[in-house]
């Protein structure tokens, strides 16, 4: 009886400790006794082929928990949740975790083979590079010229309020980590960002939490275009979604790196290291690339002359996490995008 009470108390405490919110949790058992707990922002469906391929090589049971990037941060930074691997598309938050001492050092032949821009301090390792693209509805652009840069986009939106009024979508940067990252990088890279935001605000732009929903809306024709959509998701949908067009801007393309790190609280850092090695070698597995639609890190993509700019891992990313800076940015953005 006492034991039962104690167990109840413990489970209560355990559930209390889970103050961060999980969207989904999947378990992949394995014959071995080892267990790898992954906290990730990537959809479980997207990641499942990788986990299955990994388990074919290593008999390690895997728990795959999905949470938003903000919740990943809450879990690791504030609550010290026990995870062996944190996978997130929010490079800035991953960088902050590593900078503030919440990540373990890891190095291997596989991580050494990564290009230098795809890792930071041997703690944060990128395994995909996902460009932000413009997704268009083909029907809406039947008579219009497809813009190739942001200036062109601004001019197009200004000239055709009839086409685009209420039919533009973009991330709500207040709730989406990836959206905030793209928006802040845009603001850094081009002067036209704020003018574009103004124009989009005047046209009653609709805000979304996720790329998938924006793509769906474009495909249905609700949106004429969606700005700063994760290219990997769009490309994955392209074969069975005939109505959409993907445009990569030629002034610059922000490339988000999906990164993995081993939290300080990890209990199975060796298994986590094996998973990092597996992810770092993703480019060598065309079957997985096809199954997940994830574009792997390819060295040479960071070449200086290219307009494709992988967002640089490093302390610069901490700037937009600064409380005041974020407040200021969000205030400006909100006042630009919400004009009615």
């Amino acid at each position, binding site marked *: 009886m006492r034991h039962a009470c104690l167990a109840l108390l413990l489970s209560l405490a355990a559930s209390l400790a889970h103050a961060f919110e999980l969207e989904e949790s999947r378990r992949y058992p394995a014959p071995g006794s080892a267990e790898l707990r992954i906290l990730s922002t990537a959809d479980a469906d997207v990641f499942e082929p990788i986990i299955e391929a990994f388990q074919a090589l290593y008999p390690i049971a895997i728990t795959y928990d999905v949470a938003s990037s903000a919740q990943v941060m809450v879990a690791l930074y504030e609550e010290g949740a026990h995870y062996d691997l944190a996978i997130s598309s929010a490079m800035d938050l991953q960088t902050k975790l590593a*900078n503030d001492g919440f990540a373990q050092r890891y190095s291997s032949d596989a991580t050494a083979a990564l290009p230098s821009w795809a890792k930071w301090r041997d703690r944060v390792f990128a395994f995909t590079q996902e460009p932000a693209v413009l997704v268009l509805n083909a029907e809406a652009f039947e008579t219009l010229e497809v813009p190739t840069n942001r200036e062109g986009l601004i001019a197009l939106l200004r000239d055709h309020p009839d086409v685009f009024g209420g039919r533009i979508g973009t991330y709500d940067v207040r709730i989406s980590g990836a959206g905030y990252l793209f928006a802040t990088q845009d603001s850094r890279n081009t002067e036209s960002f704020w003018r574009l935001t103004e124009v989009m605000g005047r046209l009653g732009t609709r805000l979304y939490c996720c790329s998938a929903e924006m793509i769906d809306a474009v495909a249905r024709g609700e949106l004429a275009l969606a700005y700063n959509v994760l290219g990997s998701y769009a490309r994955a949908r392209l074969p069975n979604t005939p109505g959409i067009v993907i445009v990569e801007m030629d002034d610059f393309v922000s490339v988000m790196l999906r990164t993995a790190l081993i939290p300080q609280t990890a209990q199975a850092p060796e298994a986590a290291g094996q998973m990092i090695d597996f992810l770092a070698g993703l480019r060598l597995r065309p079957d997985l690339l096809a199954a997940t639609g994830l574009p792997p890190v390819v060295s040479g993509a960071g070449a200086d002359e290219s307009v494709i700019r992988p967002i640089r891992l490093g*302390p*610069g990313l*901490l*700037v937009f996490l600064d*409380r*005041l800076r974020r407040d200021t940015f969000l205030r400006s953005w909100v006042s630009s995008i919400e004009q009615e």
Partner: protein
Amino acid sequence: MTVARGQSSIRRRLVVQLALVAALLSVAFFFSLRVVAERATEATQDNILAASATSIADALYTDAGVVRVEIPYSALSMLGTVSEDRVFYHVRLDGETLTGYDDLPVPEASGTGRDPRFATYLYRGDTVRAVVVRRALNAAGQVHRVEVVVAQTRLGLAAISARITTTATAIGVVFFLAATALSTFAAQNALAPLSRLAEAVRRRGPRDLRPVTAETPTELTPLVGGLNGFIDRLRAALTRSEDLIVEAAHRVRTPLATVRTQAEMVHLQMEKPENRAALRQMIRAVDESSRSAGQLLDHAMVTLRSDQLETEEIDPGELLRDAVDRLSPTADLKDIAITLDLPDMPLSVQGDTILLQNAVRNILDNAIKYSPADTVITARLVPGDPCRLEIRDQGRGFLPEDVARMPERFSRGSNVGDVVGSGLGLTIVRDVAEAHGGALEIISSSEGSGACVTLVLPCC
């Protein structure tokens, strides 16, 4: 090289001392390089930190009476360009955190002014270098004091420091090895004149008492001077003693000649046989003394002349013939016949006539002295190079155990106690032979009687 091993060696001392100096210099170089390079890298980090903090301070602004800051992207990204170090910042307004890491300590400001202040301390498990930049800001009529702290870990610095240490070590070791090799070479070079001098002194013959004239560096001049002075004194002492012997021999011989003449005259007048016998013994003793004095004289002369040979071309056959002619009367007294066996062809020897005559005469004299009466002595010249002047007698010969020591000074055969002798004869022969690059050979004939003494001379 006669530089003794195991004992103190100038070269070793030179090399060791130079190597020690090189080692000291290498170590000093290593440390100074490290200090300079590390100061430089530290200064670089400080400069970047100060630039970062200053750019944050420059981004301070007031908005409706509220102090705010918009941290520039470059302020933190510039810290990430040099190394992958952790970066922390903290902006304080009137002692309250405005933004950033609120537990990041503010470096102690020792002094006033707007200059950035630096400090090194432990933060979140790593040593960090921190800078604080202070600003005063006027908002709504109120003066606010703002402190901007930027800190960075020093792992990149440690990596650079490790690289510098490796480089400095490599350079120091190479420098030391090169310096040591050069010191060895230099010591070898510096001591070369000493080796040359030692070689020059070693090479000279045992009787070469000329002063050393080899070219020597000034440092060795006192040594050479001392050596030459010593040689001079030695030569003078030797000359004096030779002079003394010559003088002594002369002084003994002349009165002995007088005594002999007188004794012979008295001998003729004596009638009693016992008196005559006594006088004959006396004359004999006088003869031997005179002979010994003569040989002492000859020996001294040989010693003197062999230092500076007055060489000329001599026919060794002539030498033999001359000696036989001279000593035939003496041999006749003992009824000893001397046969001369010379080759038909003329031969020639480079040598000092007086010395060679002396040597041949000594051999022949010995042969006559130790030959019993009514025997034959053979004097033979064997041509060839070297040519051999053999004097063979039928006397008692040498005992085998005596042969080796016979040419020693005052050394006589152990079977000649009954014959008076000085023990100098064969010494003179040997000295002359060696002065001419030849040799003295003594063979005791196998039959147990008779000896063969050969003067071997280079011949052409």
